[in-house]
């Protein structure tokens, strides 16, 4: 597992208050939050999220890491992105979701890299299409070594 993905479903206000160290949050909808973290931290992130949402009756936290494949594009990723996605890039830090190389994806923008999150059952398309379209670019497609790009201040 290259990185963990934990989904949290709860009331919007409850999700607003979640702040777990060293996680990358992607707010998919008012009642759905994805927390991305290092591979070995899925369990602890789940535990922390459940504790944070304990007051929300009916909330649920599930480790869905196996359902996702994460890739990191570095180098000329801006050019690669421009070729492969119809949606203008978001200003970093930011995220959006849409078709990337015709694969449904969640995209997280950082200055140095682009994180691409796709369903694990479609991941085989992504690598092939990136290489096919961007073989002339200096794009390194890497599995994220660690999600060390917190999108918010780490809480004490």
């Amino acid at each position, binding site marked *: 597992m290259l990185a963990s993905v934990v989904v949290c*479903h709860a009331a919007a206000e409850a999700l607003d208050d979640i702040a777990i160290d060293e996680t990358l949050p992607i707010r998919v909808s008012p009642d759905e939050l994805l927390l991305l973290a290092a591979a070995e931290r899925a369990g602890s992130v789940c535990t922390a999220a459940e504790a944070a949402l304990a007051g929300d009756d009916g909330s649920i936290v*599930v480790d*869905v890491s196996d*359902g996702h494949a994460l890739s990191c594009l570095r180098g000329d990723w801006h050019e690669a992105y421009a070729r492969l996605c119809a949606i203008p890039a978001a200003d970093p830090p930011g995220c959006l979701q849409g078709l990337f190389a015709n694969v449904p994806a969640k995209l997280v923008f950082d200055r140095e890299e682009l994180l691409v999150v796709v*369903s694990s059952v479609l991941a085989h398309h992504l690598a092939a299409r990136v290489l096919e*379209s961007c073989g002339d670019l200096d794009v390194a497609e890497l599995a994220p070594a660690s999600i060390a790009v917190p999108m918010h201040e780490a809480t004490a």
Partner: protein
Amino acid sequence: MSGDNAFEFEGRRVPIHGGDTVASALFRTGVRVFSRSFKYHRRRGLYCLTGDCPNCLVNVDGEPCVRACVTAAAPGQRVRRETGWPSADRDVLGVLDRMHSLLPVGFYYKTLLRPRWLWPLVEPWVRRVAGLGRAPTGRIPEAREARHLHPDVMVIGAGVAGLAAALAAAESRKTVVLCDEGRLGETLPPGAARTRIDQLAAAVAAQDAITLLEQSPAIGIYEGPLVVLNEARFLHLVHPARVIVATGAAEEHGVFDGNDLLGVWLGRGAARLAGAHGVLPGRRVVLVGDGAEAREHVETLRAAGAEVTEAAGARVVAAHGRHAVRAVELEEGSGSRRHPCDALVLSTGLAPRDGLVRQAGGLPVVAAGDVASPGASLADAEASGRRAGLGEEAEPVASPLPGTPRAGIVCLCEDVGVGELEHAWYEGFRSTEIIKRYTTATMGPCQGAMCLRHLRAFVAAGEGATGLGDGPTNARPPARGITLEQAASGVGRELHQETALHERHLELGATMEPAGVWRRPQRYSGVEEEYWAVRKAVSVMDVGTLGKFLVAGRDATEFLERLYPCNVRDLEAGRVRYALLLGEHGFVVDDGIVCSLGGGRWYVTFTSSGAAAAEATLRDWIETWGLHVYLIDLTAARGAINVAGPRSRELLQRLSDDPLDNESFPYLRHREITVAGVDCGAIRLGFVGELSYELHHPSSRSVDLWDALLATGSDLGIKPHGLDALRLLRLEKGHIIIGQDTDFDATPAKLNMAWATKLEKPMFVGKRGVERAAAHEMERKLVAVEFRGKTPPEGAALKVGGRYVGQLSSSGYSHALGHGVGLGWVSRVNGSFPTRVETDGVLGTVVDHAFYDPHGALLRA
């Protein structure tokens, strides 16, 4: 022809000189007829040499409708003309040019309609005779990419105005994509414009902010705005903040008697042929036109060696000649005069190439240069481009229409002359849009570039004009011809889903097949071998493709109780129930299982190909009812392996310390167990009719689990089984496959599955539909049929007394039972459903139980 600087033209070798287009090379070798006109098969020769007219459409390397005048000649090309039979030079169908009275405008609306059988016979011949070329059906299309670009500014057209616009935008720190349908300046003859373009091009090349795409015609401007460029390698989908159209102007097409004779040229075309390619359009040239550009053309032609008679200010009355021009009659102040010539060159005005501008509607698109103000000076065109590049709006200058056409061909593409327009007018078609539709003028390859202004002038001068729709006609993409292959760039890049075991299946030699959005193993070795492994030993199957969902939230139980026709609330933790999913109409749309996890949480499954639609249905109902329900898709996160066969328990016990006996783990229960170190949610099911454990687990552990099962079960005779074996195994149990055995109106009762619906429930989705159907006598239903003798194929018709009563939806030979079995739909015969049927000479008996293990003892073992 390889290694030779030449191309092949209809069996002849055509040498290529530097910078040649296909047209210039052919003309140099003496080719004068490039095509035959659409309807009357008139000879057509080179005319514009700017890619605007339809005269030089040829087939190059199998691709039809290629504009020879803007296509670079290359060694090894194979070029041929596509119109005319047996050849463009000697076309038997040229006789149609003498039959104008028999082929009036719109003749196909009036003739050949009675008797009714006549038109279907004639139509193929008419289409063949009137075609512009044949589509290359023998070639497999290439998959092409589409790429996205996101500049601040898109500039279409790299003439003086376009280049200036791009530079101005870049200087004001905008990113720019600049495109042109040809190479920069290639369609211009030597002169001031060509020189200035070269200078500006050098400046553009030095600007990093400008991406120049040559030979990339803009196909259309769409909402967004989105500009689509058709480059040879890709389709570029450009998403700019604003668009500048600087597509310039074409020379005004001349309309007069004889205007389509060979040897009649537009000025830029003649000058380009002479100046850029060193080929004279004729030796004795009459040039009609005034203005600086006309004078430049005269100089170019004279410098190339032509004898040029200037006729500034004259009006062409007629061009004379049998097939090629021999003389031109001019009205020159004091009267008409006839001038002998072998080339008539026209430089009488400009028509803006404004198709893209007219497409743009309310989008942020501005016009610059000749397209906005035809005939502006070079300096003005450049200034116009600069202003557009800086974001300044400019009012386009209205370009006066040409004089009313009196004679000659107005629409070269569709062979519509003034006579045809007058005929249509007489018949009452009296506005631009209507007369366009009736005559098809402006609807050919040039899309009105040559003829629209003349059509409007005709309408404007017509007595009794309606005044409605007399402006320019609507312009729609594509602005330039595009093949279906090119238009499909980036489209149809199908996505198919693969489980974590995909590579393992390939390593085992599986034949993979599309199954909905998935790739699944059809078979590994032989179907019978796999079948017997399930029936006699133990087998594994990758069922990770099943739709799997976690249903949670305060109202999860209530939600499922309303959704499913079966009871849900009464399921204790650890229990499993088979469930149909109905539409509001009461018809079966999918099926699966419901597992009670306890604590108000549920695990539900759907079929592999129906899961996406089922999920949408569930989310729809959650929203409709306003219930507090969370639906979490675990399809990709959870793998699933079905371990099936009489020795399945024995195999699993080797790999698990958890109790798997029937008392601890009965049929239709689920348990958390650990198998080969992998935590699994195991479910006892019976789709294939044997003792089975379906192991749901984290998909990252699928390979470990699969490998452990195959390795540990090798002495038990384990084999994986694929879809072919599965279909037969479940058929022997009479289990349906949604979409194969169900029809669009399959109620549970028609499927003999009324037991899966609890009508005593106060409500469930589809209840009213089920009740409505139950109030009427069932007219058809699904039955199980045993066959003795040859097994009929799926889809075979079922008959009673020779009369068709239905068809088989599933069929196969049962190895265990030694005869054919099937599921099929039958209608009532004389008020009753048949108990015996016949298909293709084979007799079948309808049974009311599963063929194999009818009491289910094996799967409950």
